[in-house]
């Protein structure tokens, strides 16, 4: 809690309670939303034309009604849809996402293998876009209508408007093939193998295992896909930060701060950025959600073994439990990001706290 900067009146201890209450309310709402997500993913996946039986069984087996019936029964497809949903829900409550029809493993186990790769990529992209996006935005605002501002405007326009898959291809071509700066496909050099999985994050696992060779290879492999993925968010954040900062710069209290001779850095960080953060966080939250859809394309181009590749494979083979699992994970990530954004509002803006 940023108690120090707040108005002098000492706050009673119970101040934490409204936040706790707020958190509980939001969590309950999140559970409700998660339930909604399960319903939507279930209905959508079951509306898809095409029979999972035909996609999964061989020709001979398809010709044998006994085997088809057995397969349907095994995957619970012989029951009416509402019953299938209840069974699905019952499993979810117990942490069971069902069994993938392709890998024959629990979907949760599959996801545990793929999600960390995506988290690592998206996490790196989020980090990069927060740092660069906000920094660029501040620079553009402070150097308004001068060269840095114009240059950054072009960059953010490119970031927002260029399709991710095209950018991924071009970046791969330029940095990997032409300039030979970055490594190729995948998360790590194939010849190195990978560090024993602990967190699933290749860079962290490599560090934990003390394998510097794997760490530097994994970090190198992250650079291009993470930058490609981040470019859209960087563009967006640059634009929003710039306008938010400009707006605050024009406020009386900033002028007053300047007039009383506060150093520029203090004004920027204590006065300007703090107020500008609220709209920035709103945009960032939304943008990070969209990162996940970007990963599907980026993962395909960079052969990144993440949830995007899993989702694509599952969708094309009508592996419904897997598709629902992915839908749920993506939905939950959105929820979590939203929750974080809401809590951050409270932390940054005292006016929001008691609502």
């Amino acid at each position, binding site marked *: 809690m940023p108690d120090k900067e707040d108005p002098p009146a000492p706050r009673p201890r119970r101040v934490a309670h409204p936040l706790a209450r707020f958190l509980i309310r939001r969590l309950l709402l999140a559970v409700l939303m998660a339930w909604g997500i399960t319903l939507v993913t279930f209905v959508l996946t079951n509306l898809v034309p095409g*029979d999972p039986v035909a996609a999964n069984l061989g020709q001979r087996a398809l010709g044998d009604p006994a085997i088809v019936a057995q397969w349907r029964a095994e995957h619970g497809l012989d029951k009416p849809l509402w019953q299938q949903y209840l069974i699905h829900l019952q499993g979810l409550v117990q942490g069971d996402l069902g069994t993938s029809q392709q890998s024959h493993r629990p979907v949760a186990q599959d996801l545990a293998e793929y999600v960390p790769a995506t988290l690592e990529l998206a996490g790196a992209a989020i980090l990069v876009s927060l740092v660069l996006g906000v920094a660029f935005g501040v620079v553009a605002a402070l150097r308004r209508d001068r060269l840095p501002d114009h240059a950054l405007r072009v960059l953010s326009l490119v970031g927002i408007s260029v399709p991710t898959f095209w950018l991924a291809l071009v970046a791969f071509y330029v940095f990997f*093939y032409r300039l030979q700066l970055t490594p190729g496909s995948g998360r790590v050099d194939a010849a190195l193998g990978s560090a024993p999985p602990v967190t699933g994050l290749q860079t962290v696992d490599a560090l934990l295992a*003390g394998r510097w060779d794997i760490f530097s290879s994994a970090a190198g492999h992250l650079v291009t896909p993470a930058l490609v993925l981040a470019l859209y968010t960087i563009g967006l954040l640059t634009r929003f930060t710039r306008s938010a900062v400009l707006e605050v710069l024009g406020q009386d209290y900033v002028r007053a701060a300047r007039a009383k001779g506060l150093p520029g850095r203090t004004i920027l960080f204590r006065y300007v950025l703090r107020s500008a953060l609220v709209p920035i966080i709103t945009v960032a939250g939304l943008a990070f959600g969209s990162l996940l859809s970007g990963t599907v394309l980026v993962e395909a181009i960079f052969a990144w073994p993440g949830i995007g590749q899993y989702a694509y494979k599952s969708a094309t083979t009508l592996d419904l439990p897997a598709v629902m699992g992915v839908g749920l994970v993506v939905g939950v990530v959105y929820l979590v990001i939203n929750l974080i954004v809401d809590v951050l509002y409270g932390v940054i803006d005292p006016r929001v706290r008691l609502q």
Partner: protein
Amino acid sequence: MATRSQTAAVLLAGALTLAACGSGGTSRTPASGGGKTLVIDTSFDLKTADPGRTYEPTGLIVGKAVYETLLTFDGADVTEPVPALAESYELAEDGKTLTLQLKQGATFADGSPVTADDVVFSLTRVRDMKGTPSFLLDGVEVAKTGDSTITLTSEAPNPALPYILPNPALGIINSKVAKQHGATADAQDKAEQYLNANSAGSGPYQIESFNLSSQVVLKSNPKYYGAKPAYDKVVIRNVEAATQKLNVQRGDSQVALNLSGDQVTGMPPTLQVKKTASANVIFLLANQDSAISRTTTNPKFVEAVRKGVDYAGLLELAGEGSTQAPGVIPSQLLGALPADQGAKRDVAGAKAALAAGGLSNPTVKLEYPTELTVNGLSFQPLAERIQANLKEVGITVDLQPAPVSTALDNYRNGKEEMGLWYWGPDYPDPSDYLAFLPGKTVGLRAGWKPGAAKEIEEAGEKAAAAIGDDARKEAFADVQTKLNASGPFIPLIQPSQNIVTAGSVTGLDYHPVWTVDVADLGVK
């Protein structure tokens, strides 16, 4: 708050550094093996590593490396099966009994010997589990008739059997290990999950890790009784074709399997480019079921399409190394029609056929899978070219692309008015192509019911029963000539399989069944 979080950050950074340094001492151990690694990039078509269920190109590469079959082929020559786990075989004169003698000294990866019981279990399992490859052994009885003698008996003459046995789907598994993990010789089998993560075979490689959508890592089998493969580790990665090209050019991978004709032009001389006509035959089908179409059932319509397609144009599209398919049987196989018997474009003849059939400006729907590629060639440009070709003849083609999973449904159920598909040999024997006859797998997909074309069906029966290379060659050529004259299929092209390898990789041959045998690859 600021100070508190700063302190936390410093502590965390310190802890991380400590952790890294602390374990740094143990990092001296070299990376696993330290031997040669081969990286193969391919667009995955992979469902399983259980040989009894394997039927996809990527799965067959894995299966070939990890499991051994009774017979195999020498390099890319598919005209004569050679010994593998069986040291010899003999087909009885009536073509119904195949007797094989097992080689002595072959062992599984756990060191136990490969026995006749393993063979019987493995083969009956494939047949009775009814996975995709089970049809390979339809109507074949497997029996142990001596300590190391296996007898395969078929009800009807089955001269194709020696050509079927090399299929990696018929790899011999360690029955003891497999049974411990749920293997049974019926549809209740539960061993797939185990076999997806472990290998129970006698091949030169073992599975180190297996992932359906990203990569498969093979390590050499230390107990392999044969010659050690040149690479200790083989990494097969799922990579988009466009990226495959850049990876192999920069040396990030050594083999790229799915490049199109366009993509392999202008490769630097340091790389080896192998262009071989693949054994995949792309064809058009015209539905013969009058409930589906009144147009395509008209024999004159099929004739018009056959004469209307610009085969040379399709070849140009498919790139160097592709060839026209004169019949449904690809050029590598016994019984293939000579190249000069392929259909030729004859626009006037096509128009005349339409007129003779009483058809004026017919419109037909052409269905095809959108995202499927055959040897790097996608169906979309082919379909568009065919649409343009037939427009000149006076046929309006309404293109109906769909994702594979949906398009397959219609195709398999014989619901397509016209379809653009391909057929790859299940085993390199012409008898596989009897599937195109009325009432058979592909025939039914074209709405061609049993008894619809007596003459062709009789020719097919004769070909199925023919024994001896010359007699079979003649009989299958006859079947195709008749199919071309009045069947519902228009064979188009065999696209080129382009394989690009690093200069250091030797011994690569494109194989029509398993694409690449990784154990055959060497290092220069």
